[in-house]
C-alpha cells in the first residue's frame, strides 16, 4: 500500500491536483477570453473591461460545448488511448490542454477579425459578414487537421481518429447551435438563414471579382 493511498492527501498530491486543475481550464479560458475581447472590439471599438468580461461570459458556451463533446470522445476511447506521461491521474487534464491547442487556427482567425474591426468604421461592420462566412472554412479545415494529428498521437487509428472528429463536432456544434440560436431554431426562418448566407457570400465574391 503506497503512502499516498492513506486518507490524508500529501502536499505533493495537492500540488498535482492544483496543477491538473490549472491545466484543465487554461486553454478553454483563453478561448473564451479571446472571444470576449472580440466582442468588446466589435461592439465598442476598444478593449474595455465591462465588455470583455461580458463577452467572455456570453461565449463561455463555446469551450464548454467543446469540453462536453471531448469528454464523451475521451470516454469512448478507453482501451485504445495511449497514456502519455507518468501521472495518469492528470492525463485527462493534459489531454484537454493538448486538444484545445487545436483551436489555434480559430484564435488566429479571430485575431484577423479583431484587426478588421479596428480598421472599419462602426457603420460598416455589417460588411464583415460575407468575408467571415467565406473564410470560416479555413480554421474549420485546419482545426480538423490538428485534431486528426492529436487523436493519432493519442494512439487512435486513422479510422478511429476520423470517428472521434466527427463525433466531437457533431456533439459540440449541435450543443452550441442549440444554445446560441435557442427557440429560433424552430422557425422557418432558421433554414432560410442558410439561403441568406449563400446570397451574402455570392454578392461579396461578385463585388471582389
Amino acid at each position, binding site marked *: 500500500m503506497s503512502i499516498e493511498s492513506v486518507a490524508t492527501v500529501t502536499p505533493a498530491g495537492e500540488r498535482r491536483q492544483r496543477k491538473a486543475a490549472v491545466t484543465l481550464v487554461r*486553454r478553454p479560458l*483563453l478561448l473564451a477570453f*479571446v472571444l470576449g*475581447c472580440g*466582442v*468588446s*472590439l*466589435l*461592439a*465598442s*471599438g*476598444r*478593449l*474595455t*473591461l*465591462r*465588455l*470583455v468580461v*461580458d*463577452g467572455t*461570459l*456570453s*461565449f463561455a458556451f463555446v469551450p464548454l460545448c467543446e469540453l462536453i463533446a471531448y469528454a464523451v470522445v475521451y470516454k469512448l476511447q478507453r482501451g485504445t488511448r495511449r497514456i502519455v506521461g507518468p501521472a495518469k491521474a492528470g492525463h485527462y487534464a493534459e489531454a484537454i490542454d493538448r486538444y484545445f*491547442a*487545436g483551436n*489555434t487556427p480559430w*484564435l*488566429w482567425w479571430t*485575431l484577423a477579425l*479583431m*484587426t478588421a*474591426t*479596428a480598421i472599419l*468604421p*462602426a*457603420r*460598416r*461592420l*455589417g*460588411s*464583415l459578414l460575407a468575408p467571415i462566412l467565406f473564410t470560416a472554412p479555413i480554421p474549420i479545415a485546419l482545426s480538423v487537421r*490538428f485534431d486528426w494529428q492529436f487523436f493519432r498521437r493519442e494512439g487512435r487509428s486513422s479510422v478511429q481518429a476520423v470517428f472521434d472528429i466527427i463525433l466531437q463536432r457533431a456533439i459540440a456544434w449541435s450543443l452550441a447551435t442549440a*444554445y*446560441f*440560436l*435557442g*427557440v*429560433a431554431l*424552430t*422557425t*422557418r*426562418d*432558421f433554414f*432560410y438563414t442558410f439561403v441568406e448566407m449563400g446570397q451574402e457570400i455570392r454578392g461579396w465574391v461578385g463585388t471582389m471579382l
Partner: protein
Amino acid sequence: MRVGAGLIVMAIVAGTFADRPRPREEITLGGYRVLAADFHTHSSTWSDGSVTPWGMVIDARYQGLDAIAITGHRQTLDAKWGRWFSTKIGGPIVLVGEELPEIPHHVVAVGIHTTVDSALPVREQIDEIHRQGGIAIAAHPGQFFWPGFAPVMTTLDGTEVCHPATFDYPQFRPELEEFNRRTGAAAIGSSDFHGPGRLGMCRTFLFVREVSAAGILEAIRAKRTVVYGRDEQVYGDPEMVRLAEADGRLRQRANTDYPMSVLDRLSQLLGIVGFALLVRGVRL
C-alpha cells in the same frame, strides 16, 4: 507569452479609461420630453447576440439611450432579465419584446408580457401583440418581405426606416422608405444589434408625454417619432421633424460615428499585438 499578456492588460486598461458614457442631457421640445430608443436588439442569452441582457442595459447607458427593447427570437426571458436589472440600477427603460422571425415577415413586438406564437398568421400575430398592449414593428421590411406584410399594412404601428443594412446596401434604403410611406406607420430606427456595430446605431427619437414604457408606446401609436438615417436623411412626424431640425441636438445625438481617441487606438493596437504574441506562444 508574458509580453503578450502584459500588452493585453495594458490594452484593457487603456480601453477602459477611454470608455465613457456619451454625454446626455434632458431634451424637451414642443412640450414633449424627447427620448432616444432602440427597439430591436438581441442578447447573447440564446438569441444569437454577443452581449448579455445586463451588459446591454449598461451599454445602452454608454450609448446615450434612454430606452431599449430586448427582442429575442421567439422568447422574452432575456428581456425580462434585462428589465429586472435595469430597475436595480435606475435605468434605462427596458421594454419586453421579441422578434417573430418567420418567413416572409419579421415582426418586432414591443411592450408585450408573454411570447406571441410566431406560427400564427401575421394578422393574428399583430392582433395578439395589440391585445397584450404592445406595438408591432415591421423589421427591416425590404422588398422581399412586402408580400408577407400585405395583410397588415394598416395595422402595423411602426416600420424600420433606418437599419444598419442601409449603410452596407444602399439599395435597401429606398425600399424601407417606400414601405413606410405605404403603411403610414411610425418611423422607427433600430440597430438590430447582435454585437457588431453599436447599440443604438440607428435609433428612434420619441416625443413622449410621460417618461415611462407606457409613454413610449403611446408616442409610437401617435407616430410622434423622428429618425435620422443614412446621408442625413430624416424621417417621422412632420411637426416633430420641424421641432428637431430647428433645435439641432437630436441630429448630433443620432450620430454614433464618434471619433476614436488616442486611448482607443492604443487599446486596439496593444490588444492586437498582444494577442498575436499570446497566440503565437500557444504550443501545438
